[in-house]
């Protein structure tokens, strides 16, 4: 049985992507007979490259990927280094972890209302401190350099990387390393970066790459916070895809290929940066400075971490307030009146989307977890991880911009007579959920100390018993965390759900974006709340179950 698990995983990941890519690549080179393209040509690329402001769109996408990953990773490293095993760490950890459950779009809306010139921060200080009775005409949200966009991405990626890091922490001798570095006179942060971080980074490296791929091709956050003159490449890509003119399809497909190149370029730049950082760390390490005075940098890391939590929670709190507010004008800090109109209008229609979201999410997550655990168990038996080729398969769905290959995939499904049904939707979600589950779980799985199993074998226990009694329980925290990530990914899927569900199967997220298109902050608030609630429940379960299971196992607790 296990033998087929890796094959199954590869089939689930690769077939849809390859089919979708074929449906993207062929039109990119002018070939799609049904739309009147019967000759291979570079014309679509010529048209794309001739689009005004294309270079700038590409650069924004590229910068979003690299900058977001750099700042998020640095922040997580400094924070874990500076504060692990402290009460503050646990406090911030419990504050930041739930943020992972917040869908990108909801976080972006919340952030936008915080920082806009007519937003909450400006209202707090107006008019008594600023003299503003009208909002100032300042370009903050949608700024030309994409700084708001990157901020919106960072506040969402930091919790993701922190959670992945926390899942990796039990696999490294953190406390012992800290003590050792401390006894040699190193400051906390430097000691951590020199001893523990390289081992952790090896485990979270894939997750960081996923962050780059996501940030460089994000559509929803870029629509809300990103520049518009011109917009970043992924946003324009979706616009081209939705152009009712047939000929735009060819150009859009070429654009999707370009997006693939931009994402790849961002990854390559990152790999270069990795090398530089490793070299710099090595040099510093060899020269021997102890960096004892790191109170400043620790404080910066703590403040930055707290800011991400406050920014999102504050923003969501404000959206929640909007959902029950009457008219709420600048510079009022609080709404003039409250009203339940929004909820009354929204709740009656919420049943179907809610059911679809939960059932599809659960099915995709459970299937993913089964396939991933089986594949990893098989890998452990054979000792073959499949190497880089297998990794490429896992990365395909995360690296290829959704807009590109999902349109192509839909072409295949529609032709195959597969309409908008529940199973098709689960299948498409599986394509995106499985990689995240795999990425979240593979590192802790592989880092598992196999001596435990050796001891079990030495005590005469069979493979099955060892697996069920030793490995599964000890990795249950990591498995559940991976499933929670998977469920959150499923809940947040927009484009694949809209395309494959064809509007017949709607989820909270597709409803949120469709209604959010109207810019009504009350409705956005209601859906952001619902969108957040589901993944949050998932993460709460993932945290609660191990805590209950291991309430009398001290060594299974997180520092």
């Amino acid at each position, binding site marked *: 049985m296990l033998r087929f698990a890796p094959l199954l995983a590869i089939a689930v990941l690769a077939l849809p992507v390859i089919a979708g890519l074929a449906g993207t690549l062929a039109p990119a080179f002018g070939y799609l007979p049904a739309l009147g393209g019967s000759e291979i040509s570079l014309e679509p690329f010529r048209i794309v490259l001739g689009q005004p402001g294309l270079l700038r769109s590409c650069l924004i996408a590229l910068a979003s990927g690299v900058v977001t990953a750099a700042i998020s990773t640095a922040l997580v490293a400094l924070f874990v280094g500076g504060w692990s095993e402290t009460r503050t760490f646990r406090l911030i950890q419990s504050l930041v972890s739930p943020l992972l459950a917040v869908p990108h779009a909801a976080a972006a809306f919340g952030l936008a209302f915080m920082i806009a010139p007519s937003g909450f921060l400006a209202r707090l200080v107006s008019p008594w401190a600023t003299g503003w009775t009208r909002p100032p005409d300042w370009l903050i949200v949608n700024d030309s350099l994409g700084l708001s966009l990157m901020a919106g991405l960072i506040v969402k990626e930091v919790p993701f990387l922190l959670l992945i890091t926390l899942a990796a922490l039990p696999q490294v001798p953190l406390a012992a390393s800290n003590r050792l570095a401390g006894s040699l006179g190193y400051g906390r942060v430097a000691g951590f970066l020199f001893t523990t971080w390289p081992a952790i980074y090896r485990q979270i490296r894939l997750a960081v790459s996923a962050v780059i791929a996501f940030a460089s091709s994000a559509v929803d956050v870029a629509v809300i916070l990103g520049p518009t*003159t011109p917009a970043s490449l992924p946003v324009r890509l979706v616009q081209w895809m939705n152009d009712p003119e047939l000929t735009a399809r060819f150009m859009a497909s070429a654009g999707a290929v370009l997006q693939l190149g931009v994402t790849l370029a961002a990854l390559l730049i990152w790999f270069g940066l990795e090398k530089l950082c490793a070299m710099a760390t090595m040099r510093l390490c060899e020269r021997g400075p102890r960096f004892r005075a790191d109170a400043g940098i620790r404080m910066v890391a703590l403040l930055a971490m707290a800011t991400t939590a406050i920014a999102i929670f504050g923003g969501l709190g404000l959206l929640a307030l909007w959902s029950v507010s009457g*008219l709420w004008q600048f510079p009022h800090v609080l709404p003039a009146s409250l009203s339940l109109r929004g909820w009354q209008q929204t709740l009656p229609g919420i049943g179907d989307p809610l059911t679809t979201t939960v059932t599809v999410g659960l099915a995709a997550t459970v299937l993913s977890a089964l396939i991933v655990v089986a594949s990893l168990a098989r890998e452990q038996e054979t000792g073959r991880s499949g190497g880089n080729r297998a990794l490429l398969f896992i990365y395909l769905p995360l690296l290829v911009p959704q807009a590109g290959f999902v349109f192509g995939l839909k072409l295949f499904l529609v032709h195959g007579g597969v309409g908008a049904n529940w199973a098709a939707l689960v299948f498409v979600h599986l394509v995106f959920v499985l990689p995240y589950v795999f990425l979240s779980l593979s590192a802790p799985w592989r880092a598992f100390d196999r001596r435990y199993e050796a001891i079990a074998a030495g005590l005469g226990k069979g493979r099955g018993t060892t697996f069920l009694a030793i490995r599964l329980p000890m990795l249950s925290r990591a498995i559940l965390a991976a499933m929670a990530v998977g469920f959150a990914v499923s809940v947040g899927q927009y484009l694949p759900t809209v395309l494959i569900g064809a509007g017949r199967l709607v989820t909270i997220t597709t409803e949120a974006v469709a209604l959010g298109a109207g810019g009504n902050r009350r409705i956005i608030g209601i859906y952001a709340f619902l969108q957040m609630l589901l993944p949050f429940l998932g993460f709460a379960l993932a945290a609660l179950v191990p805590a209950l299971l291991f309430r009398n196992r001290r060594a299974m607790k997180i520092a």
Partner: protein
Amino acid sequence: MKTVLAALAAFALSTTLATAAEVNPADWDAVLKDAKGETVYWNAWGGSQNINAYIGWVGEELQQRFGVKLVHVKLDDTANAVATVVTEKAAGKDTGGTIDLIWINGENFASMKRQGLLYEPGWATQLPNWRYVDAETKPTVTTDFTIPTDGMESPWGMAKLVFFYDSARTDASGLPDSADELLAWAKQQPGRFSYPQPPDFIGSTFLKQVLSEKIADPAKLLEPVKPDEFAGLTKPLFDYLDQLHPYLWRSAKAFPKDYPSMSQLLADGELDITFAFNPAEASSAIANDLLPDKVRSFTFSGGTLSNTHFVAIPYNAAAKAGALVTANFLLSPEAQARKQDPGIWGDPTVLAMDRLSDKDRARFEKLDLGIATLKPDELGPTLPEPHPSWMAMIEEEWAARYGVAN
């Protein structure tokens, strides 16, 4: 690559064979019979809660009266629905399509008509309720952006460009009465006017309004644009925008995304003048606590753009009978009167009052159009929509000039 192409060609060429009895709109009893038990997937913009609620009401009535189940597929852009039909046609799915009805007009309709993606000509004029439609004084119910509808879409509501301001902040006496006066006004109030970024529908409408006012020969706009004349004829528009942009909100480095975002900016006090395509929009927004109750409307005495929005049926719709019944119900005096109520939606009717029975006319006469809505005789003259080809070229030129403003 070769095998991929071969596979692609194979599936592109093959077609799905299915035999479905075609409905005949002329035989209405048969249509009603066919429609019973069908599910109609209506793809319609879902960005406005009050419109969604109205569509929800339509669904309840259809279920009760005709046994038709209506599902509102909420779109954030109608072009997505067109793209879906394009994809289905490309995949050879010529029957049993996923869309039964689309809320549509303008370039989306023109595009679908040109590509043969619409259900047969003449179905709309065969609907029983077509007899109430005002095709005489509202020529746009049969001519959509200069394109003859040929009965391939059924009118649903009327639109006219009107402007809004907050009378608590802005003095009514200084309001502009033309595009030129608007420019002068913006220069005096820098940063307090903007328009949704084209190709947003409302943003493009603003550009067409300015062009209609500034072009030397407006008759040119009713014909397809000739590419070699385009630069010369639109020069007044782009000269105008060149002058206007430095005085726009955010100095034209960013634009509101769409009408609702622009309306939110009026409520936030960031903008002083906004506009919409529905004369009752402000009254409706006030009723829903989205705008302060001091907001009022005005238009240009020289006229503003006006058009009609429709519903259309894709050629491969699975529930054509149900879609016909839905389109017919949308034209009923009862549904049209409810739609025109600003407390519900406020969208003007396409029906002719003199064709209605006394009872039905009374439904419209008793409507309170709302404090911020102009009376029909205050709405000013109407300007026709240019041919859709203008919009496409203007949007392209706009993107090249201002879409990369930084």
